[in-house]
């Protein structure tokens, strides 16, 4: 499973990073960095939760 950010939509709210801190992080500029695009099986639930809390639906998962 991979996690993909639509950079044109992302507003840097950071809710996703709180839900999946091992996968996503806001950098010093407030830009979202994907720490690991590949989602390990034990991170899948966090990745799904991260995708759901984004208020602008900027994230998606690809299997």
């Amino acid at each position, binding site marked *: 499973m991979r996690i993909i950010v639509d950079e044109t939509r992302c507003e840097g709210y950071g809710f996703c990073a709180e839900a999946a801190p091992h996968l996503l992080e806001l950098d010093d500029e407030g830009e979202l960095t994907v720490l690991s695009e590949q989602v390990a099986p034990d991170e899948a*639930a966090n990745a*799904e939760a991260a*995708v*759901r809390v984004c208020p*602008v639906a900027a994230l998606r998962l690809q299997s």
Partner: protein
Amino acid sequence: MSVTGDTVKDTVKDIVVVGGSIAAVTAADALRRHGHEGSITVVSDERYTPYVRPPLSKGMLKGVETEESVFMAPPRSDVDFRVKTRAVGLDRERRRVLLEDGEELPYDGLVVASGARARRLGPPEAGELVVRDLDDALRLRAAFAEAGSLVVVGGGFLGMEIASTARGLGLEVTVVDQDPPLVRQFGSLLAEHMTRAALDEGVRIVRSPGGVRLVGQAPVTGVRTAEGELLEADVVVSAVGDLPNVEWLAGSGLGGPEGLLVDDRCRAAPGVVAAGDVVARVSDRTGRPRRSPHWGSAIDQARAAALALLRGDEAPPYRPAPYYWTEQWGLDIKICGRILPGAIPEVLSGSLDERGALVRWTHDGVPVAAATVNHRMPVVKLRKLATAS
């Protein structure tokens, strides 16, 4: 039944969640994350699976984003998610949620996440337009496509976002409110800055301290101010606040006009927790119940509520850390904390006139809020500014 050392109360097996939006979805996610293995049934009275509301007054309303793009990732497979299913009652003694079709859902734990709806000025038959759900936004977007003019009743953040979107589409826009726009949510410095931006874009702002009355019915064709001025437009939309959805709790002893009151762990009663726009908490500052109807509060409360349901007093208390934002007139504003009445703003960097700034408010010498205006900054940093000196 334990995940990373968490202890889950074995007494909580079947959990029912009432609501179909971010608070409901986050609660279900958090329950599973914290090791709940029993059933989770979510009932939503909407005809859609969950979607995000913030774009409904911004990109989606403008038409730069499609309606498909607002949908959240599908509900998880280990949750029984039912759309078009309305809860109409709660029997706390027998621990059952009553559904519109007569079915009763037994629960050990209940999450109330029924949110809020738009307040209306007229009776249902007035055909008043509001923006709360996806169908409202689709209706308004279609109306904008054919309209030349718009009156927005209400100069809060929702009303001003709708006004900004419509102006961007070329409509002639009038905003009418009892008070100067935005002051309550954004403080006078930012509110005045945003209002000036609106005026610069040719929007008319009318102040009507006595309120307004709708004129015409299905469709509403205008409003008349208490001062007697008639404001007419092709489209009239009300953005006059929201009301918590507590009616289905009537008779259960829970919920009132101010919302569903919860304690410091989002608990409303034994076995009942709540999160999101429906929730009221007693304010530390004023001692009065207060709702915090924002996306971020719904998420934080849903996580706290899920933990409290599973762990009771061992769950950490919920510490509100308000965070909200708006986009209007080319201004992208994010705020942490609460801009208390009388708080003193200070521009820490940039300048509002240059349209990019970092602002902090202090109250009695203590920082209470911080905001970025067209300025990127990680939320954690902004939050620190809002709380530390």
